[in-house]
């Protein structure tokens, strides 16, 4: 088998100029773009549908069928029509912002410690960090609930935030570590050599250099937090977040306002990506040509 394949492989360059090769090449020409297009469609169709049905004008409660274009859901008074949905949105944003800030700070410190120091328990910590990512959310949700109940913590926004910080930290550590493990620690030595105390060295050298990793981690866990349903549902008590509200509403029909809020959140993310790409381009264009000598 192997020898035949090898022989074919060896002979192939000779055949490359021969006519029979041509149709195959033509077939390849549309195959790759078509395949790529399908994968991209697979990724983006759900988002497109969400955005589209934010402009739908359904007659009844169900927003499943296209019944005409309207902008009325973008009118602030209609958009904020359901007070409990507004509360859920505010809760979701509060939880996401607070848990992102805390988890990112804690996770970054863990990532720095893991890459900078060799301490006892380092490898078990490295492994343990994957546990929250690998365990089923139901398990995490139930165990947290059991914990809160057994130590008498009243369920509510605070328990949701604690739960979200818990599952976010691992993602932050993994993301930031990708950045810190390539970090040249001579740079910190150099900062110290030039008169910077460790605090100054961190903020003027280490932090700016690992910031892209921290930012990426922050965005990732913000996204994880704002759409978490399973863990939140166990630990919410009376509080409602957007996913909980939408799930509750789905039995009686999800109003187009939810689509609009989703679209706005999505646009915010898109705007950020565009701005950062544009700034990257500008920095490249501004840089003077590379000189040698």
């Amino acid at each position, binding site marked *: 088998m192997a020898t035949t394949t090898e022989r074919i492989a060896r002979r192939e360059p000779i055949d490359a100029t021969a006519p029979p090769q041509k149709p195959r090449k033509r077939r390849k020409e549309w195959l790759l773009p078509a395949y790529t297009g399908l994968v991209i469609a697979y990724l983006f169709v759900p988002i497109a549908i969400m955005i589209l049905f934010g402009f739908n004008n359904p007659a009844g409660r169900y927003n499943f069928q296209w019944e005409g274009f309207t902008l009325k859901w973008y009118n602030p008074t209609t958009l904020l029509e359901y007070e409990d949905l507004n509360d859920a949105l505010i809760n979701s944003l509060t939880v996401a912002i607070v848990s992102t800030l805390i988890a990112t700070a804690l996770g970054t410190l863990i990532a720095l410690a893991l890459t900078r120091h060799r301490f006892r328990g380092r490898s078990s910590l490295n492994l343990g960090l994957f546990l929250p990512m690998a365990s089923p959310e139901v398990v995490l949700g139930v165990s947290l609930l059991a914990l809160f109940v057994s130590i008498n913590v009243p369920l509510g926004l605070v328990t949701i935030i604690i739960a979200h910080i818990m599952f976010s930290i691992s993602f932050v550590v993994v993301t930031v570590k990708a950045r810190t493990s390539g970090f040249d620690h001579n*740079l910190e*030595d*150099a900062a110290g050599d*030039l*008169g*910077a*105390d460790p605090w100054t060295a961190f903020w003027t*050298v280490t932090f*700016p250099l690992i910031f892209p990793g921290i930012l990426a981690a922050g965005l990732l866990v913000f996204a994880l937090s704002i759409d978490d349903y399973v863990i939140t549902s166990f630990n919410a008590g009376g509080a409602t977040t957007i996913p909980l509200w939408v799930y509750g509403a789905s039995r009686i029909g999800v109003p187009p306002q939810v689509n609009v809020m989703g679209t706005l959140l999505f646009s915010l993310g898109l705007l950020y990506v565009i701005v950062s790409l544009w700034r990257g381009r500008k920095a490249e264009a501004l840089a003077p040509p590379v*000189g040698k000598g």
Partner: protein
Amino acid sequence: MPDIRLEGLTKEFKEMVAVDHIDLTIEEGEFFSLLGPSGCGKTTTLRMIGGFEDPTEGHIYLGGSEVTGLPPYKRNVNTVFQSYALFPHLNVHDNVAYGLKRKKVAGDEIKSRVHEMLDIVDLPGYEQRRINQLSGGQQQRVALARALVNRPALLLLDEPLGALDLKLRKTMQLELKRIQGDVGITFVYVTHDQEEAMTMSNRIAVMNAGHFEQVGAPQDVYELPATEFVSGFLGASNLLEGEIESVNGPTAKVALELGATVALPADRLPTRQGRIGIGVRPEKIHIQDASAADASSRANAIEAMVRMSTYTGVSTSYECRTSDGSPVVVYVQNLGSSSVSIGAGTRVRLSWDPEHTFAVKRVAKAEDDGDKTATAMEGART
């Protein structure tokens, strides 16, 4: 006034001693090199002076006051790192200005000092360049400017030219020497390149396995190596076994294993009696056809057989063997077409002046003991 003093400086890592009780004094304004093979402890020594590594034992004094245990940012020392360690997120100006900003120097002064320093390192107008747009040689200069702009009492350089190609390295050697003259700062320079150390330094410490083998001016270290390691590390050398025969005032006589007796100044003997190694540099040896030996022969002479002669343009090198089988290499400068090459198989007379003869202690390979004595002696010499 001494600028640096090291006393019994020692660094032990878990399983090994990287720096082993070194003593050293470096005077203000000196260009001092630490020379030794890779892994001998040069970087560790430098890192202890810079404050990045705490010594296991010993003391470090800078400008008369003890700094042992002080963190780097409290020492008036700057370092040019082996990999430059330039800040990639800052442009050239901000890299060079980093130390001045930490010292809260006024903005205008920072600007003019950075400008002036970039002129000195021959990078005028490069303030706004990003680090990744610079060539290796340019990065090296920025690293130098970033350190020197702080006007430290002492500059530490860890193989700063190691990453550059040969031609650029030669240019930068001269540049560094010029800059050191201009700014008048004490340089402690780490290198494993003996030629580099010799061309640049006022004094050299030859380091081996964590200790100093010899400390001295380049000429002294080259002409009069004190140990077998030094004689082998700095250029080629010939070592012959012998036993001290007599010490008569300023002159000593040593009976070589191969039969002849050679003379040398008595103060070069590491011991007063017993077995020693007698050395002579290849270019110091005069070579003649044994059958045609004449008055141009020098006082110390041995017989040998030419095994191979190699013409290299500026010189011819002869690989010879003595009667007891020891190899001896001779370099003869090509002074003109008249100098006739001596062919392989010729019996020759090799001779040299007692003045050009050096002696090293014979170290029995298995014993560590003699080595330590040699080190102690070097310490005394410093």
